[in-house]
């Protein structure tokens, strides 16, 4: 009945993803149809451009960095993201559920995503320069270089427990302790 080639998601696959990500079947099917519509060229995977074609993401000052973190976390050097990887990343943003294991959406995993975004060269540390790059994309040209430096200094100083001038993931988590990450990095997925 019609174009069945677009229905590449088999039942077993859905079950597997569901076990993997704690999304339910309905959510997976919906995310899949979103995946297909993002995949304008119909390649079966997403590229950076496919993400940045979403205007709301493109106007997001950190949009580019978010896409970057997406690809880094997926562990894909080829800059191609298949549906499995796509759902897996999104699973990080599920609300924390007390009754489940929260393999992907625990507090630390959520923070990992944010950390990846800052850690531009992926060496496990956020340096002052890296932070300045992010800060700059957030505020644009509305701040002077001195102010930028000042803010960067203060931010690094505040989280830098071992005073090595950079922030490790552990330091990052500690600095975020007061922040309600469960709320701030959870998206309300509908059933």
């Amino acid at each position, binding site marked *: *009945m*019609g*174009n069945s080639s677009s*229905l590449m998601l088999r039942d077993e696959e859905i079950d597997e993803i569901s076990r993997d990500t704690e999304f*339910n*079947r*309905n*959510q997976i*099917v919906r*995310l899949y149809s*979103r995946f297909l519509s*993002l995949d304008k060229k119909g390649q079966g995977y997403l590229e*950076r*451009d496919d993400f*940045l*074609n*979403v*205007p*709301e*993401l*493109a*106007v*997001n*000052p*950190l949009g580019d960095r*978010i896409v970057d973190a997406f690809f880094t976390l997926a562990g894909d050097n080829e800059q191609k993201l298949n549906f499995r990887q796509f759902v897996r990343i*999104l699973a990080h*943003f599920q609300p924390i*559920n*007390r*009754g489940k294991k929260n393999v992907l959406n625990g507090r630390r995993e959520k923070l990992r995503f*944010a950390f990846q*975004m800052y850690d531009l060269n992926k060496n496990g540390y956020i340096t002052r320069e890296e932070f300045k*790059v*992010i*800060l*700059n*994309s*957030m*505020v*644009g*040209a*509305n*701040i002077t*270089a001195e*102010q930028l430096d000042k*803010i960067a200094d*203060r931010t*690094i100083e*505040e*989280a830098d427990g071992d005073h090595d001038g950079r922030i490790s993931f552990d330091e990052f988590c500690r*600095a*975020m302790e007061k922040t309600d*990450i469960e709320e*701030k*990095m959870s*998206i*309300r997925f*509908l*059933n």
Partner: protein
Amino acid sequence: MGPFFEHIIFASAFLFPPVALTVLLCLVLATFGKSLGLRKLYVNTLIAIFEWGARQIKTTKKMEKIKRGESSAQLFNLGDCLSSSDDEQPSDDNEVRSDGYESGSGMRRRHGSGTSVCSVSSVCSRTEPALLRKNSIIRRETQIQFDEDEDDGEVLVNSRGWAVMRDSIDFVKAGIESIIEDEVTSRFEAEQLASWNMLTRTSIRFYQFVNWKLTVLYSLGFLLRYCVLLPLRISIFSIGLVFLVVSTAIIGLFPDGALKRRLNFNCMLICYRILSRSVSAVVHFHDEHNRPPGSGIAVANHTSPMDAMILSTDNVYALIGQRHPGILGLVQRALSRASSHIWFERSEAKDRATVAHMLREHVSDVNKLPILIFPEGTCINNTSVMMFKKGSFEVGATIFPIAMKYDSRFGDPFWNSSEQTWAEYLLRMQTSWAIICNVWYLPPMRIHEGEDAIDFANRVKKAIAQKGGLVDLEWDGQLKRSRVPPKLVRKQQEKYCHRFARYTSTSDGLRANAEAEDDGEYITFKSPGVSGYNSLEELPEDVIVSSDEDEGTIPEDAIPTRQRRRHARSDNDVDDVLLSPITSQ
């Protein structure tokens, strides 16, 4: 071979009279603008069939579920944990879950017509945007537009330095939400339907095999559409087209004057009525006392190339648009023979001033027809209204807003020009069940004292969105083809900076500086004080009927920006431009 041909000849001889009679009947009825109520009957029958189909799908799903032994408790797990914080959630969830397998009553509810489509009222369709949410994956919470006043006092800054980090988390959430679901891209795709309409349609879940009864029904429908409706419609369409070309050629011979105008008026009505029957268009006009009288600008939301045809079955308009090649070009040239329309070349479209001048001239002539403009400049999928280009609102003429809302259950009139050619689109329309459209004439609007064109355009847009039950969006429809201009990103940065400056102001002189910047000391690309996305002056500003293959026009004063945009686009990286001071260090 011989007997085979004989059969064909025999069959066609046998079939010719009924086909010819049907076509003739259609033509005669169209000529006088009368209806026998057959289309209404047809549409109501279709609704009954679709509802039966929806019930079939529902029961089949239920059977499957029982077979699989799936406990519904498992399905609700996530909903339970969510609902603790939101009372509304559970009911919404139920709807979402059952969506697609909805019963007949659900389908009625969604489309707001209890007994027949013909009774769809504006009140019912106004509730539709809320119901459209049913197809959502997530509940959007975060928007990156920081409203300057709202955030005041809300932000508790425990540690000043870390504030940036925490804010960046908000950006991340907003970004991820927009990846999962966004307001804009979905508007350029075919709208999702609540139940299968026996046409191959967008939603993947409808493609599954449900049961043999539905398959048979689908096949019968397919045969009807392709073997009976399509040939009939093609003949009607061709006749309509020939009539249009011939009649306009004859009218063109008459000297200008009242007689010519009257002839043109009547002929065009007949033409468009014939053409509209080639897609079984059922159009309901509301508030006809507001119909644009003599000259003026009629402004409507844009879904398909048929919009102009649909509107023209009730009133004759002058059209404005770029010249098209092929069959559209033929129609355009024919139309111009009988009355004045504004067609411009693609290159000329770049020169906005020329078009604006032609428009102004046209409007000031009382003998000319009201001009029909689709200020969105591109086709939107009929769930929303996007930014209106200000061009047509600058002229200063009275604006007659028209809201159009199609009932996409019987065939989706939205033309996705990036996926379909015009011919494919036409074929799809002629093999659909029917095109049903509600048209509301709104009271005429004039620009207020001290109101600029952009605000006026937004006011008109809002009125249209409300009347048609559409979502009022501020995004530019040109985003369908082009990337977000860096200027919008800058706008966000600026907004964020304002917010940021507010709660760091106590510690250092940032605020003072930020305010100094407001006076233009540092910022080189400061936009004029326009709010939100209306400040897209650099974006194409065309006032085009179907600009759908148009690259867009850009006013001369924005050339530097345009180059910058090109640069940014080619690098796929907006930040490139902005980050250069740092990365070069």
